[in-house]
């Protein structure tokens, strides 16, 4: 009988032995080594053992009885230290064992990030029963904290298990969303929401700095200064093939032990199977391909023909109550089409990726009923052209007409206590009560509840609540949605972002039922602005959701060059600034133009020169004039009481103060201010978004003027006695505009919609006015930064250069 030695009793070698002993029980004398002091168990089921939903006994695949019955000589708890290919023996702690055929199935080892403190007791991986037991033991202490590093499959299963055992659990994940290798942004968002519902804290984009503690782990520090208590730290950052033996034996190696399609290594008598192999450039981590390899290897050992092929894989997270599915490829390659279905009310998201009439990838969250069917279509490469329209509704709808997504779903999903009308504090429940009481139109609901009676922004939502409760008997006026990506208007989206506390783009796409994966050039900039205006601390401005000028912080011109315009506070400058501007203009070959906003424009700058000219102007003490943003542009002033014989107040000084307070803030559209020192109005303040006229008795603050496509005089907002009050009212007005206006509505358009009286009412309320100012200032702590200085730094400046330049190279 031939001697077969197997190194490693894992799932792959276990399955291989089953096939082998089934087919030819007497072909080999089998010796099985395992470094772990036990035989084969279903390693992927450790998670339910960790959570207490299974016992270890339940996941044992081969017990002693099985090994005895199959005459397998077991050498458990004994590590193999070397393979001598010449003498055909393996060396272990207890001596030498000869083989005729050898199978390496050493699997993989967890990747431990070499952070400071990674050696402290209490830092564990999550790979075997010992790790699992260590975590169970740590969870037995009341109030114990666990930190999981890595938000992939294993890390999240560990988090859910430890939470179920009562620990306070935090997951640190380096990328922007959980399980980014298997899920897209939206599914990752839903998963995070689901885990947070279980009391698990999730921090994405988390860079771990160090693990600390005296004698054992006590806390984890992040780069941003966050400190997390930790009684145990679980590193679930990935696995590495365990290939030291194969390497030392001189086998052909790639990232793991190279095998052919028969699982043969470069040595004809040595085979490898499982996570320690590399086949055609692929490594393997999920169980399905390991089982395929096991089957092939059993055949090979028996001199039968079989070939291993790489197949599509699917993933299921083993967290009770989390239904997600991901299969195939939704990441790389050209010529693809997406089909997206979202049901915000039920937390369902499905996305299919089609290429050349074949389904090649699927992600599902919350509804995985059809996952096997989709997986089958992917594996079989079925032509889906005929059923493309209804494909996403699954097999039950094929041949039947599919149900369309419900445009009212987002509103139907709102709970009764969700605030619909912020002005008057009216909740969905109040409106439903009015409807039950017989109010069946917007007007009657408004009369009874005051919903939409003030600024009116929420009128569309009130109508949707009516439609949800009255069904077909209520005829919805046709409001214009933002774009084809959704069924909601700008106003609806703004209100829902506040009411539902949506703080990320994926949250908006999912909870408001977007029909595209990530919006388009129309809706995405608007949503980006709404999010940053409402959640300045939680949401981060997304440059890829900004149009070219705001992304490059310069105005693109018709020939693709840019204009650069430094800020001149209140239109004041100095000889030194003018010299620096003149030198920059000469150095970068710019055309020079004096603008209507009292500053100097340098035109014709090449994109790659932008960081350099910015650095030059920064050096002279100047910052960006934001002549390209939907934000504060200029504050135009006259010379005022300092110089002018008619001037009543220091209009230049007020203009400078306003500009220094407001610059850098993002607004729905551009905002221009003017301050005139007397009613002669040399600064043309009466056609600005906010225009202040100084008079003897104080300041007349006017708003909602226009001098563009429309020309309109400002309307008087308030007369105030002091400069401080004039600034406070101006800032409060700008913040109210930031919080309520539709993206790309200038203030005069917005005021026309909500009514100046409403604006006056809000701002006249001192506590509301002051809290508007507070919120504005809070937002400025994040956004009042000179974009030039940030981008003139070398790492950022590089992004303005071509990725590569082959124009200087000789032709081939």
């Amino acid at each position, binding site marked *: 009988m031939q001697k077969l030695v197997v190194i490693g009793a894992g799932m792959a070698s276990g399955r291989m032995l089953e096939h082998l002993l089934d087919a030819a029980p007497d072909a080999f004398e089998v010796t099985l080594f395992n470094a772990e002091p036990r035989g084969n168990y279903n390693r992927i089921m450790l998670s339910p053992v960790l959570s*207490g*939903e299974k016992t270890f006994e*339940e996941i044992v695949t081969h017990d002693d009885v099985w090994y005895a019955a199959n005459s397998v000589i077991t050498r458990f708890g004994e590590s193999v230290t070397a393979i001598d290919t010449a003498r055909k023996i393996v060396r272990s702690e207890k001596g030498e064992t000869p083989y005729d055929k050898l199978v390496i199935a050493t699997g993989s080892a967890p990747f431990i990030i070499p952070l400071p403190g990674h050696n402290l007791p209490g830092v564990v991986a999550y790979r075997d029963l010992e790790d699992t037991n260590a975590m169970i033991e740590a969870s037995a202490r009341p109030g114990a904290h666990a930190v999981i590093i890595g938000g992939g499959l294993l890390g999240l299963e560990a988090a859910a298990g430890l939470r179920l055992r009562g620990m306070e659990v935090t997951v640190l994940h380096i990328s922007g969303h959980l399980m980014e290798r298997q899920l897209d942004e939206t599914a990752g968002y839903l998963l995070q929401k689901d885990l947070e*519902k279980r009391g698990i804290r999730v921090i994405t984009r988390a860079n771990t700095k160090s693990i600390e503690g005296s004698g054992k782990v006590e806390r984890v520090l992040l780069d941003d200064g966050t400190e997390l208590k930790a009684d145990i730290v679980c590193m679930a950052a990935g696995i590495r093939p365990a290939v030291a033996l194969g390497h030392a034996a001189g086998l052909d190696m790639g990232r793991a032990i190279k095998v052919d399609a028969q699982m043969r290594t470069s040595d004809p008598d040595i085979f490898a199977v499982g996570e320690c192999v590399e086949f055609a450039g692929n490594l393997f981590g999920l169980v399905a391909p390991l089982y395929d390899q096991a089957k092939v290897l059993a055949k090979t050992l028996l001199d039968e023909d079989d070939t291993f092929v790489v197949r599509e894989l*699917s993933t299921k997270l083993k967290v009770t*109550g*989390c239904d997600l599915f991901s299969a195939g490829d939704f990441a790389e390659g050209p010529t693809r089409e997406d089909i997206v279905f979202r049901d915000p009310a039920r937390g369902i998201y499905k996305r299919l990726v089609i290429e050349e009439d074949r389904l090649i990838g699927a992600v599902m969250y919350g509804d995985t009923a059809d996952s096997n069917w989709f997986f089958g279509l992917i594996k079989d490469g079925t032509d889906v052209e005929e059923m493309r329209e209804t494909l996403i509704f699954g097999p039950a709808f094929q041949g039947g007409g599919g149900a369309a997504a419900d445009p009212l779903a987002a509103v139907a999903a709102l709970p009764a206590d969700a605030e619909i009308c912020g002005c008057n504090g009216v909740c969905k429940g109040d409106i439903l009560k009015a409807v039950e009481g017989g109010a069946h139109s917007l007007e009657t609901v408004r009369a009874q509840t005051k919903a939409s009676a003030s600024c009116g922004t929420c009128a569309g939502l009130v109508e949707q609540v009516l439609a949800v409760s009255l069904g077909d008997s209520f005829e919805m006026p046709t409001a214009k949605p933002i774009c084809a990506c959704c069924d909601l208007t700008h106003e609806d989206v703004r209100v829902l972002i506040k009411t539902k506390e949506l703080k990320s783009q994926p949250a908006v796409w999912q909870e408001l039922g977007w029909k595209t994966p990530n919006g388009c050039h129309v809706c995405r900039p608007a949503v980006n602005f709404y999010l940053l205006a409402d959640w300045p601390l939680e949401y981060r401005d997304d440059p890829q959701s900004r149009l070219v000028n705001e992304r490059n912080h310069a105005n693109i011109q018709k020939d693709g060059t840019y204009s650069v315009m430094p800020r001149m506070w209140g239109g004041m400058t100095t000889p030194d600034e003018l010299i620096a501007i003149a030198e920059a203009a000469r150095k970068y070959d710019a055309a020079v133009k004096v603008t209507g906003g009292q500053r100097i424009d340098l035109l014709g700058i090449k994109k790659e020169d932008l960081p350099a000219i910015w650095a030059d102007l920064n050096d002279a003490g100047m910052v960006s004039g934001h002549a390209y943003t939907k934000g504060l542009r200029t504050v135009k002033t006259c010379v005022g009481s300092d110089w002018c014989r008619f001037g009543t107040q220091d209009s230049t000084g007020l203009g400078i103060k306003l500009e220094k307070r407001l610059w850098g803030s993002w607004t729905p559209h551009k905002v221009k201010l003017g301050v005139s020192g007397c009613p002669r109005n040399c600064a043309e303040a009466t056609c600005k978004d906010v225009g202040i006229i100084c008079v003897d008795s104080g300041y007349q603050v006017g708003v909602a003027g226009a001098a563009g496509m429309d020309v309109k005089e400002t309307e008087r907002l308030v007369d105030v006695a002091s400069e401080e009050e004039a600034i406070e009212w101006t800032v409060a007005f700008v913040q109210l505009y930031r919080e309520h206006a539709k993206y790309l509505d200038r203030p005069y358009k917005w005021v026309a919609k909500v009514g100046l009286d409403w604006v006056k009412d809000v701002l006249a309320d001192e506590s509301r006015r002051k809290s508007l100012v507070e919120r504005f200032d809070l937002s400025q702590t994040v956004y009042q930064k000179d974009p030039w200085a940030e981008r003139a730094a070398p790492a950022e400046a590089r992004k303005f250069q071509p990725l590569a330049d082959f124009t200087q190279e000789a032709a081939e």
Partner: protein
Amino acid sequence: MDDLLEAPTNTFIRIAEVWVPEGDRLVLATGTYDGLEGFGAASARATFAKGEGLPGKAWAEARPIVLRTLDDSTFHRAKAAAASGLTAAVAIPVFAEDVLLAILVVLFADAAHVGAIEVWEDSANSLVLSDGYYGTAEEFERVSKATTFGHGQGLPGGVWASETPILMRDLGASYGFLRSESAGKAGLKTGLGLPIPTPGDKIYVLTLLSAPGTPIAHRFEIWDARAERVGPEKKALRIDGLCEREGFLAPKENPPLDALSVTAWQGPIGRVLGSGLPHVQVGGAGLPAGYTQMVALPIHHENGLAYVVAWYL
């Protein structure tokens, strides 16, 4: 394990009854009496209005109710219960949104048994014990009363957060840090937690904690019947289960392609799928080998029947 089966142990639960609304009263639909037919006869004669007796109270208050003694004035069939040696009872309402479908009543005999039935409800963002019957596990009862669970914590918190029935093994080693020690001492080993949806805003979680010597049941199963999981056809997949004879009943593959499935009206579980009502059965077709009794409880979510939980004696 085999020894244990050779000498069948007394189980904690003696009687299970299903009461259904007929007009404005609850009438007995089915019951399993296991030698206590005297009590069965008393039940067959009884009907309850909303608020009346144990089933009526569970209907009126729309929550699970535990009676720790049956000489309580709530319990109308006290005489028959005393004659049958019954000592405690629990009533579990089954609602589909606002509509009461049935009340499942379970009665216990002999307080010397170790085991626990608990009702947890939410209060100030955590779960607190609202009611419980503990047999002789007095220390465990004391600890439980002093324990609260956050979202996702322990068996009750896990059920609350995931809105899914959960079956836990080896409570002594795993049942959350707060109670594991006393659960271990009390000999409580297996725990089944179920969400009990009711029309109000209140959250209820029912837990059945079982000890090997006097088990609540010898076999537990959890079936997933949500359309999100099984599709539009009325069917269910067995997602977890534990059996003293067959061992592990959950799917072993990932994804769980090997999960056992039944369709509506196929066997006792299928019957629950079809009718949406609880089902109790003694003998007859469809029981797993070696079992003579079963209780199956449906759990309805807003989109229809979501789960079926079954236990077998």
